[in-house]
C-alpha cells in the first residue's frame, strides 16, 4: 500500500523519460503515463481511506537521516484533485496542440511538472520541498513559453526569475532551520520547534519564498501575463495546480510544524494580504479585456481566499471546529482547482475557434460552441460560489467561523470578492449569449471540449453534493496533513 507514495512521483517521471526518448510517440506514451499516474493516485486515496495516514521512508532510512513521504487526509484530497485535473488536461492537450513537434515538447515537460506537483504534495522534508519547487518552476516556465510569442517568452522569463528569487529566499530559511535544529524532517521539527527569533525569521523567509510562487498579493504581479500568454492547457495547469501547491505548502508550514512559532499578528497579516488579493484580483478580472487574462486575475483572488483561513485557524485547538474549517479550506481549493482548469480549457477552445479571446467580441459563442459556453458558465458558478458548488459551502463555513470567532471583518473581502466575481462572470456570459439562433449541436469537438466540462461539473455538482465524503476522509486520518 505504501508503495503508492513513491509510485505517484516515479510514474510521471518514467512517463517523462519515455516521451523524451520517443518524441514521435509522445501523445500515446504520454496518455498511458497520465492514466497510470492517475490510477496510482486512486490507489493511494483508497489506501488512505482504509488505513489512515501513510508515511514511507525512502531508501529505508528513517528520519532524520532519510527523506520521508507522507499522505494524510488533506494532501491526499489535493493529490486526487491534481490527478483528475491533470488527466483532463492530458486528454485536452492531445487535441489542442496540432503540431507533432509541439506535442513532443509538451509531453515530457508536462509529466515532469506533474511529478513535481505530486512530489511537493507528498513532501515531508524542508530541503526536498526546495528541489521540488525548482522542478515545478523550471518545468512550469518552459511550458508557459510553448506559446512561442514574444509576450509569452517575456512573461515566462519573468516567471522563472521571480520563481528563482522565491527559491533562494526559501533556501535561506531552510539553512537557518538547519543551523538551529540540525535536521530537515517536518515531522521531527514539529515536535522540537519552539518560539524564538531565529524560528520566526526562518518562517518569514520560508513563507516569503513560497508566497512568490503562490502569487500572494502583492507578489502576484508576474502571474497574469504568464498565465494569459501560455497555451490554454498550460494555463489551466499553472492556475489550477501550481499556485495552489505553493499556497498549500505555506498553509502546511503555518498550521503544521511551525504552529508553535506563529503569532496572531503574523496570521492576521497573511489574512490581510489574502483579502487584498481577493479584492484586487477580482477588480482586475472585471476590468480585463481578454478571457484568459480575466481567468488569470481571478486566480489571484481565489488564492487570496485560502489565506483568509489562516487567522481563523491559527489559534484554533484541534477539534471538530478546526476539522470543519480545514475541510472548508480544502473545499475552496479543490473547487477552484476544478473550476479554473475548466475555465482555461474552455477559454482555449474559444480562442482557437474565434482566433482571439477578446471579451467584447465574444458574441455568438453560445451558438458556435454550446458545450464550451456551458463549461464557462458552470465554472463561473463555482468561481462566484453559488450553490450547489463546493466554494459556496466553503465560503459559508468561512463566514460562520469568522462570526463565531468575533473576527467579523473578514466578511467584507468575502462579500466584495463574491460580488465582483458575479460581475465578471456575467460580463462574459452576457457577451457569449447575445445572438439569437438556437445552436444545432451541443458538443463540437469532444476530446477538446468534454474534459473541461467534466471538471466544471465536478466543481459545481460533484464537490457540492459529495462534500460529506471529504470530511469523512479528513476525520478518518490526522487532520494536519
Amino acid at each position, binding site marked *: 500500500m505504501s508503495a503508492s507514495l513513491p509510485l505517484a512521483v516515479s510514474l510521471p517521471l518514467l512517463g517523462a523519460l519515455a516521451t523524451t526518448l520517443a518524441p514521435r510517440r509522445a501523445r500515446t506514451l504520454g496518455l498511458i503515463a497520465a492514466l497510470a499516474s492517475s490510477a496510482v493516485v486512486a490507489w493511494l486515496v483508497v489506501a488512505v481511506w482504509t488505513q489512515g495516514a501513510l508515511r514511507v521512508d525512502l531508501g529505508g532510512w528513517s528520519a532524520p537521516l532519510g527523506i520521508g513521504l507522507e499522505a494524510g487526509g488533506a494532501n491526499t484530497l489535493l493529490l486526487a484533485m491534481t490527478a483528475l485535473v491533470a488527466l483532463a488536461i492530458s486528454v485536452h492537450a492531445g487535441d489542442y496542440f496540432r503540431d507533432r513537434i509541439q506535442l513532443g515538447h509538451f509531453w515530457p515537460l508536462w509529466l515532469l511538472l506533474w511529478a513535481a506537483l505530486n512530489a511537493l504534495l507528498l513532501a515531508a522534508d524542508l530541503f526536498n520541498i*526546495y528541489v521540488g519547487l525548482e522542478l515545478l518552476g523550471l518545468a512550469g516556465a*518552459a511550458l508557459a513559453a510553448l506559446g512561442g510569442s514574444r*509576450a509569452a517568452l*517575456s512573461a515566462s*522569463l519573468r516567471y522563472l526569475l521571480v520563481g528563482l528569487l522565491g527559491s533562494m529566499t526559501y533556501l535561506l530559511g531552510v539553512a537557518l532551520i538547519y543551523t538551529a535544529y540540525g535536521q530537515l524532517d517536518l515531522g521531527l521539527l514539529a515536535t522540537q520547534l519552539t518560539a524564538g527569533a531565529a524560528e520566526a525569521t526562518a518562517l518569514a523567509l520560508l513563507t516569503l519564498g513560497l508566497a512568490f510562487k503562490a502569487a500572494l498579493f502583492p507578489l502576484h504581479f508576474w502571474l497574469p501575463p504568464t498565465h494569459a500568454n501560455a497555451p490554454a492547457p498550460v494555463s489551466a495547469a499553472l492556475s489550477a495546480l501550481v499556485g495552489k501547491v505553493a499556497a498549500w505548502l505555506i498553509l502546511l508550514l503555518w498550521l503544521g510544524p511551525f504552529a508553535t512559532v506563529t503569532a496572531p499578528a503574523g496570521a492576521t497579516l497573511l489574512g490581510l494580504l489574502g483579502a487584498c488579493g481577493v479584492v484586487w484580483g477580482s477588480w482586475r478580472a472585471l476590468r480585463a479585456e481578454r478571457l484568459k487574462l480575466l481567468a488569470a486575475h481571478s486566480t489571484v483572488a481565489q488564492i487570496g481566499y485560502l489565506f483568509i483561513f489562516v487567522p481563523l485557524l491559527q489559534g484554533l485547538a484541534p477539534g471538530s471546529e478546526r476539522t470543519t474549517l480545514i475541510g472548508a479550506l480544502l473545499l475552496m481549493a479543490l473547487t477552484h482547482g476544478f473550476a479554473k482548469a475548466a475555465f482555461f480549457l474552455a477559454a482555449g477552445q474559444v480562442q482557437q475557434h474565434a482566433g482571439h479571446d477578446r471579451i467584447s467580441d465574444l458574441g455568438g459563442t453560445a451558438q458556435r460552441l454550446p458545450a464550451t459556453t456551458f463549461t464557462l458558465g458552470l465554472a463561473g458558478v463555482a468561481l462566484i460560489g453559488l450553490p450547489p458548488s463546493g466554494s459556496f459551502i466553503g465560503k459559508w463555513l468561512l463566514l460562520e467561523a469568522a462570526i463565531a470567532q468575533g473576527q467579523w471583518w473578514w466578511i467584507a473581502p468575502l462579500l466584495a470578492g463574491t460580488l465582483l466575481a458575479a460581475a465578471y462572470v456575467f460580463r462574459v456570459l452576457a457577451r457569449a449569449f447575445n445572438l439569437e439562433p438556437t445552436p444545432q449541436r451541443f458538443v463540437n469537438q469532444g476530446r477538446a471540449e468534454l474534459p473541461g466540462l467534466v471538471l466544471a461539473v465536478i466543481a459545481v455538482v460533484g464537490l457540492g453534493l459529495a462534500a460529506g465524503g471529504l470530511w469523512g476522509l479528513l476525520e478518518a486520518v490526522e487532520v494536519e496533513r
Partner: protein
Amino acid sequence: MIPLQALYGSAGVVLFVLGLWSFLVHAPLLRKLIAINIMGSGVFHLLIAIAERGTEPPDPVPHALVLTGIVVAVSATALALVFSRRLEDAGGPPEDEC
C-alpha cells in the same frame, strides 16, 4: 574555530543581501540573473559554514545540500540565459505587458 566559522557564515549573509539589492535595483535581465546566483552563493556559503564542527569531521549533509543546490542553480541559470537570448533575438520584451 567559532570566530572563523562566524566570519564565513556572515559573509554568506552579506552576499545574499547584496544579491537581493542588486536584483531589485538593476533592470537588465542578465544582471538580475547574476544577482540571483550571488544570492544562491550566499546561502551555499552559509551552509558550508554551519557544516564545520570544530575537531570532529564536518557534517556531510550541508555539503550534499550545496552540491544539489549548485546543480539546480546551474540548470535554472542555463534555462533563463537561453530565454533571455531568444527574447533578445525576438527584439526584446514587448512594450505593452499584459
